[in-house]
């Protein structure tokens, strides 16, 4: 075989390389890849939440009866199941987001680099405060 007819053929000066194909579901083979795809798919549940929230806003705007219909719809076991799964993914999003944030940003205070654990800690504190404010506003 000559080099000429051989991208695939082997010669002493033109070895035939073996290229490993990337399987379509490459991300099921490794835990870390699976966690990555799960993290990325959390965005679908973020979008689902926006739709769920817009329906709530519409119902609230339409009046008391519509609001009650919305509450009944949300109490449907299927919708509850979807929301429980969505909550799991959204919390996973929040945790991975806050944990990765210190890698992406460098914060300086008085010329000193703030240690990554402090940045992550600050994020979690902000999460706690924001959640408390949301719950207080809705329930107060």
């Amino acid at each position, binding site marked *: 075989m000559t080099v000429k007819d051989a991208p695939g053929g082997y010669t002493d000066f033109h070895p035939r390389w073996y290229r490993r194909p*990337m399987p*379509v579901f490459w*991300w099921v083979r490794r835990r870390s890849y699976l966690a990555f*795809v799960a993290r*990325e*798919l959390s*965005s*679908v549940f*973020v*979008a689902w*939440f*926006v*739709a*769920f*929230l*817009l329906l*709530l*806003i*519409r119902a*609230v*705007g*339409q*009046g*008391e009866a519509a*609001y*009650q219909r919305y*509450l009944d719809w*949300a*109490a*449907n076991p299927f*919708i*509850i199941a979807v*929301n*429980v799964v*969505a*909550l799991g993914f*959204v*919390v996973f*999003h*929040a945790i991975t*987001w*806050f944990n990765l944030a210190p890698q992406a940003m460098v914060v300086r205070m008085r010329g000193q680099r703030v240690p990554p654990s402090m940045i992550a800690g600050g*994020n979690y504190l*902000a*999460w706690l405060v*924001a*959640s408390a404010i*949301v*719950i207080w*506003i*809705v*329930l107060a």
Partner: protein
Amino acid sequence: MAKQRAEPFLWLLFSAGGVVAALLVPALLLLFGVLFPLGWITPPDHDHLRAVAAFPLTRLVLFGLCVLALFHWAHRFRYTLYEGLQLKHLHRVIAVLCYGGAIAGSAAAAYLLTAGL
């Protein structure tokens, strides 16, 4: 290799959306998606919720949340399709669907938070 003009801005929207989604969505979803429907906590009455939602600052926050969270989804889901299902060759269709969806959702949010309340 063409320098990307739009990507930096889309990434900024994605990042901002990631932050607001992480900060606000878990608490809201816990309340409205799980605790109220299960009856573990009594949902607030209609008048209270309407008053809260109609308050200008809440409208602004809710609008920002919806827009940024949708663009967060559009960006991330686009890349998940590129990588997770190796559909990069369909990048035009996917980009139009993802960002188009985000724009449509943002328009719906704008309508509901102004005329709808």
